[in-house]
């Protein structure tokens, strides 16, 4: 998956020839980008405080409300670009989601997206929640182990979670405890392996 150093070296000259006409501009932009990355890195080193600079005032307010509502669950707050983000323990997920849906100050009425990310040592579940009134989008994250990936189901909180969890179960093998029926959704019955995972080969297909 990841490019090796040698491959990266191959790629670089080709790219710069392509952009010869705009090279001066591009180099400048690249320099700015590099500066920004450096600044980011130093900031991370200096303090363990999360970088909340991307959050606008309403998002920051929402983050405060989230922190308050989830005080019992030891939330770790951060920002995903312009969205407030809270990381919780995976075992608390169902309770956390129930609180967020029922809390009148947050009222996360919609589960917009459930993404599972394979970080090779662990999986991360990312829930995008949305509330229409008061308007706000928030991100809830929880890590699950690689060997025994399981998390409590939130299908009882939002029915939208039903298919999302079946999809994550199909592609990544995450078991959602309490889900009514984790039957294959996108894959056929009897498919072996979890094609969403990084370890799943790209070009070796199963006969069906």
């Amino acid at each position: 998956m990841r490019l090796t150093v040698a491959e990266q070296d191959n790629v670089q000259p080709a790219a710069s020839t392509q952009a010869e006409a705009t090279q001066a501009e591009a180099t400048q932009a690249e320099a700015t980008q590099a500066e920004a990355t450096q600044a980011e890195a130093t900031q991370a080193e200096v303090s363990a405080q999360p970088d909340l600079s991307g959050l606008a005032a309403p998002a920051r307010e929402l983050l405060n409300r989230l922190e308050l509502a989830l005080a019992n669950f030891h939330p770790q707050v951060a920002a995903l670009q312009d969205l407030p983000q809270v990381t919780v323990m995976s075992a608390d997920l169902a309770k956390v989601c129930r609180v967020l849906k029922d809390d009148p100050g947050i009222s996360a009425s919609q589960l917009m997206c459930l993404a599972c990310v394979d970080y090779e040592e662990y999986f991360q579940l990312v829930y995008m929640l949305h509330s229409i009134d008061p308007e706000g989008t928030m991100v809830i994250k929880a890590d699950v182990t690689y060997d025994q990936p399981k998390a409590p189901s939130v299908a009882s909180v939002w029915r939208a979670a039903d298919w999302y969890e079946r999809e994550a179960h199909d592609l990544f093998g995450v078991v959602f405890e309490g889900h009514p029926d984790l039957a294959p959704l996108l894959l056929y019955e009897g498919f072996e392996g979890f094609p969403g995972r990084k370890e799943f080969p790209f070009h070796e297909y199963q006969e069906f």
Partner: protein
Amino acid sequence: MTEASSKIAAAGEPMEMLLNMGPQHPSTHGVFRMVLQVDGEKILDSEPHIGYLHRGSEKLCEGEQYHQVITLFDRMDYIANFNNEMVYCMAVEKLMGLTVPERAEYVRVILCELNRIASHLLFVATMGLDAGAMTPSMICFRGRERVQALFEAVSGARMMHNYFRVGGIKEDLPENFGEMVGELLPLLRADVEESDKLLTFNEIFLARLKNVGAISTEDALDYGFTGPCLRACGVDYDLRKAQPYSVYDRFEFDVPVGLDGDCWDRHYVRVQEMYESLKIVEQALEQMAEGNIASSLGRRLIRPPKGEVYVRAENPRGELGVYLVSDGTDKPYRLKVRPPSFCNLSAIRHLLRNTWIADSVVILGSLDIVLGEVDR
């Protein structure tokens, strides 16, 4: 057949049977299968089966460079290609902190809104066909063809355009673009009006769609409805208004909402949206100025910085979200798409309960699904 149907039922006793609908069925709008548990003409329960078009697009994105991914987005919601490309480009641009030149933004908005009209025209055509009206579909397809001819002149392809780029667009518009759109708009408006007049308040059409497949606002939110399906329930929420992206804050347009959340409202909201989109195109064409069409950084082989981003936009079918994780290389580490049809379709079991078999076709049609993005 099933056990239930092999038994001889006594008079008046319910006789249940399973009825398989799809995957090759003209009214499933793609390859989608439902198993209906019916008692006579009444649907007691249903079991939707998706995944016939699953190509692992999200996984494929992890093996492609950032610019190559655009072609995969074309093939997800293949009725609204420009809108799909736009959301992906917005995600990468946000991650890189790129600003798109103003002209490129206007080009994108014009093409996206025309694509919305083309998509909704296809919806009206198939909605009419599902309800038994043949003629409006001819008019709708004529209008759609006009839009696609323009798309071909701009991008070289009728459907899989691959025209947007991270940081702008591929190349500038043809010289006579303004005239082409100027000629297209009155014709398109005439097509929309004609199909609208023929279909929307037709008595048979009303009888087939009104009070059929209604969903309450609470249920709609619970199932993650977005876009016209949610607005048909009376929720005034459109991302172009609520969280204006691109240059949508510079246009005046209304957000049509329904009342009852039934099939007819879902149809009517879309019809009204076409008129609003026409308004946006007219305004954008007026405001558009000459200028750059792509930022210099976007043209090169790109490597966004490490990080994550979640971007969403109002597509014809609802809210398309892209969650992008970058590890600093030239390929995305993970790309999760939140397809609007996926959520809208997940409510089909709820919608079909205790309806008639004949209504199942219009209920499914009114959700306006594209299986390419449901299955990905």
